[in-house]
């Protein structure tokens, strides 16, 4: 492990600061949890069509 200088410590602090998670990310995460809860996780993972997602 390298030793960090002051600039790197500042850089690291900025990277580690919690960021606001966008609503769309929360929605997809909750959707994944629902698939898991309802045992439909595998069905969801069918290959995606590049045009329709």
């Amino acid at each position: 492990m390298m030793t960090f200088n002051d600039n790197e410590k500042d850089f690291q602090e900025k990277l580690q600061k919690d960021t606001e998670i966008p609503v769309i990310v929360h929605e997809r995460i909750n959707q994944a949890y629902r698939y898991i809860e309802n045992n439909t996780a595998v069905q969801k993972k069918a290959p995606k069509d590049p045009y329709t997602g």
Partner: protein
Amino acid sequence: MEKMMNEFLIRKAKKGDKDAFCRLMDEQVQCMYKVAVSYLKNDEDAADAIQDTILSCYENLKSLKQNKYFKTWMIRILINKCKDILQRKKQVTYTDQMPETPFYEEEYAAKEWAQVLEPLDNKYRLVILLYYMEGFNIREISDILDMKESTVKSRLQRGRKQIAQMYEYKVREGRA
């Protein structure tokens, strides 16, 4: 403490405890989001990659032999999902004759952590993010990115030089 909690949740999740699995993944959201959005540059694609990662981790958790490698394993899955999304977009881009330049969302560019990361060259960015944000060591980063340790080391060294230059520039411009 965090590692002990994760170990506890991984063990429960492996036994089929869905709540434990969801709690475990909740702990990883900050990390997953930063990695995915710095790779894909927009929230919608990052959300897709994260969702696919969660489902893939759920399906394959039992195949993880050593729980201490959970995070390395999960980030590796996430990066592969990001690559898949970029690959699919390239296919669409080719067909639709859209420009190949990556689309940067304003919201992403406005985030402080993204602002310190973006001036770095593309090829150093992910190595730097994993090293400074998550504290992964060179061997772990080499596993995650499927890259030689010597390559990780040299990218890390060059990335560090760019960070130093970035801070020198800030001082010169009076922005420090």
